[in-house]
């Protein structure tokens, strides 16, 4: 096969890689992107998008089940709700497929060449790609490593059989009767909640003393409450020891040191994700590492000239939107623009029920960083719009410096608060003070009024509480 020579080669077509390639194409950089699977990466194929589709379907089904049980005050009743899970999965696959084609189309429009296969560095300027039709050599002036991350396996619970990762959990043939989730982080709880709504008997096993350990108790309280309401059993301080001999139960060691087992049709292991640093020839280029991640500087440059790295392979937070911003930046740097990483805010969203949004510092983190803080918390119970959509659980919380009222962090928990992440991130990125948020008119009746009210509360004069 004839060698390809290009100015920019991107390894991995996840959100970081494909954004990098599209932006580079827009800037008339001769760009090639290599991807072993379909374009879109974890996010589009087995992450953000399909999980949100599944969560939506579960929410819809839970709603009608709720109506059927005559538990709603709205006066709506239905009978015998049913779900054809095969069709649900097919619908989800349809969305993934549409987005696949969309991304491929955008790459094509930007004149980016897509090479399908597995890339491996030969040296810092040359990559070998194993394609279906043989080996393809690509020589590039600049190479971007965007290989992403993969689910972490627990040594005693190797994936296979009834032990599944989030990937398999998004494509099950039937709703498991008994589902055990090992790991009470956001991925496990998002999927565990969805399956509980679809009818599974769900047990969450978390080794630490609380679920969603990165969030404070105030933020997770509405989640815990709702998990209880959904009949999900949450076991904290419990270690997973392996599968039973028959493979139909998870063996655990409880907090008091006693062994036990939990019957399970499927065991979903979601104990985290790890950067993909093998299989693409890291050893050939011998890049400096930062723990298990590839070390990068504020321009996403690795220790080798002309080799960049973006996304999950470069560190936390492993979020698609961080990778996208890095990808865009690297494309512009390759085009000769003067860019460097100076972001103040990367919002993180947890699509549990209700949802959690965080950006910037939590009250505890702000105090640890030496700030004297002012905190304003406004509950959705006092928000008209929240009441009209039965979403009174939760709140918006603003953390600001006591001295100059500079907003340091914003958190919210509540139904649909993921969409508030935009204004939260904007406030932090622009360096807003409490007065800026309080002085911005927020439309009524919306949940966003809670944001303005939280700022007012921190200033000592909230209006609706």
């Amino acid at each position, binding site marked *: 096969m004839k060698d390809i020579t290009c100015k920019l080669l991107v390894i991995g077509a996840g959100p970081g890689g494909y954004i990098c390639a599209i932006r580079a194409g827009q800037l008339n950089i001769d760009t090639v992107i290599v991807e072993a699977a379909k374009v879109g990466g974890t996010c589009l194929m087995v992450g953000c998008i399909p999980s949100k589709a599944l969560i939506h379907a579960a929410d819809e089904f839970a709603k009608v089940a709720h109506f059927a049980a005559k538990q709603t005050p709205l006066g709506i009743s239905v009978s015998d709700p049913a779900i054809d899970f095969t069709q649900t999965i097919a619908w989800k696959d349809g969305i993934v497929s549409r987005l696949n084609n969309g991304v491929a189309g955008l790459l094509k429009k930007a004149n980016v060449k897509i090479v399908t296969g597995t890339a491996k560095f030969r040296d810092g300027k040359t990559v070998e790609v194993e394609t279906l039709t043989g080996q393809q050599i690509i020589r590039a002036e600049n190479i971007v490593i965007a290989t992403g991350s993969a689910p972490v396996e627990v040594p005693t619970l190797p994936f296979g059989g009834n032990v599944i990762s989030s990937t398999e959990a998004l494509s099950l043939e039937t709703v498991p009767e008994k589902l055990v989730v090992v790991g009470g982080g956001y991925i496990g709880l998002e999927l565990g909640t969805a399956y509980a709504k679809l009818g599974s008997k769900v047990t969450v096993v978390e080794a630490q003393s609380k679920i969603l350990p990165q969030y404070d108790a105030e933020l997770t309280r509405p989640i815990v409450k709702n998990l209880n309401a959904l009949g999900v059993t949450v076991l904290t301080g419990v270690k997973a020891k392996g599968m039973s001999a028959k493979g139909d139960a998870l063996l655990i060691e409880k907090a008091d040191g006693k062994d036990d087992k939990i019957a399970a049709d499927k065991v979903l292991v979601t104990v985290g994700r790890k950067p993909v640093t093998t299989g693409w020839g890291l050893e050939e280029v011998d890049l400096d590492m930062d723990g298990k991640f590839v070390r990068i500087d504020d321009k996403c440059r690795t220790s080798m000239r002309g080799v960049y790295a973006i996304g999950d392979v470069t560190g936390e937070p492993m979020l698609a939107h961080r990778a996208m911003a890095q990808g865009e930046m690297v494309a512009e740097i390759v085009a000769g623009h003067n860019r*460097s990483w100076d972001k103040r805010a990367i919002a993180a969203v947890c699509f549990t029920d209700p949802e959690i949004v965080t950006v910037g510092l939590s009250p505890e983190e702000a105090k640890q960083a030496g700030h004297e803080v002012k905190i304003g918390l406004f509950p959705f119970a006092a928000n008209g719009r929240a009441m009209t959509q039965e979403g009174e659980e939760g709140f918006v919380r603003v953390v600001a410096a006591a001295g100059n009222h500079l907003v340091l962090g914003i958190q919210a928990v509540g139904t649909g608060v993921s969409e508030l992440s935009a204004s939260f991130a904007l406030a932090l*990125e622009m*360096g807003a003070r409490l007065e800026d948020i309080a002085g911005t008119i927020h439309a009524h009746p919306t949940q966003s009024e809670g944001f303005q009210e939280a700022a007012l509360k921190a200033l000592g004069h909230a209006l609706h509480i």
Partner: protein
Amino acid sequence: MGEYVIKLPDVGEGVAEAELVEWNVKVGDLVREDMVLAAVMTDKATVEIPSPVDGEIIWLGGEIGEVIPIGSPIIRLKIEGEGHAVAVEPAKPVKAEAPAPADKPVEAAKPERKPALAPKPQEASKPASAKPVFNTSAPRGEGEKPLASPAVRQRARDNGVDLRQVSGTGPAGRITHEDLDGFFSRGAQKPGVAALSPDNSVKEIKVVGLRRKIAEKMAIAKSRIPHITYVEEIDVTSLEELRAALNTKKRPDQAKLTILPFLMRAMVKAIADQPQLNALYDDEANIIHQHGGVHIGIAAQTPGGLVVPVVKHAEARTLWDCAAEVNLLADAAKTGTATREQLSGSTITITSLGSMGGVVTTPVINHPEVAIIGVNKIMIRPMWDGTAFIPRKMMNLSSSFDHRVIDGWDAAVFIQRIKALLETPAMIFVED
């Protein structure tokens, strides 16, 4: 009160756009008729834009370095009496500020804003006082990160400014665009230290206007043309004697003769024998345009940079005529009044730095020409006449040729012909 729109006028034949190189006014300035408002530059000439009316500037249509199409509005003025803008340009920013009917929701929802201030948005948005910026203490506490919006951060980075050195006047010490403006105009505050200290500053200078044109032109010449440079020494003793004699008996209305008019006439003669040297090579079409007329570009240094005014039809000019034209063009170039026509159309170029001419230079061909003649300085050198060293006035010519279309042999023949003519100057004036 009316509004008057000034559009970018047609500044030269075949010119579709011009680069904005200077604003002489800002929003809010009161201007009189004929006052110069701005300068724009085309390929060759810089043109000033005067105000046709009295009025107040309310809008400027571009930034320095921006390339603007001919006919685009570039300035809006508020004038006494009826303007002409409304009919021509409906619904532009200025008009939007006019009192609106009360039933327009957008207007009604706007926070109260005094219409009197509205036409001067830049004025209105300035901080009440820039004084806090002038404090000499550190902009913020140790380890505290500068606070600025993404746009301000990028602008600082593009201009090589470390925001940690910039004081912020905004809320919570936020650095605003105005703070950056102030920082740029004032420069970084440097603490008073010992006489010798390392200077780590990097000044970023935007390459615009004439400098950009020169840069582009030079890059094209050097990247496309394989240069061959040929240096020969010329005994100009006789020529200098003739020149001195002519200058002493010249009429008052005649320009003083330099070496250039002689060289130009010599080139005309040499080109008559070798017309391939007086040509433009279109390397994309693979066509050489060999010109009958000898239009000699004279590279001239101006305060803004290098320009090349052109003596047209040197073959039809006398020695005195050439001298007069060179003087006229040099003055026009130095005062920046040279027209586009005077700055274009050369077919061969002379470059001379006079007494700064050095011993040897490697001239860059004025693309798409094929030859450039470089004049080095005249020096008295001891020359061997066969029996003794005698002092002679010697001058080198360093000349470059496009080796794609001019062979070394032809280049050498050309220079040798010029050498022969200059060393026996009477031959320049002998009709063949």
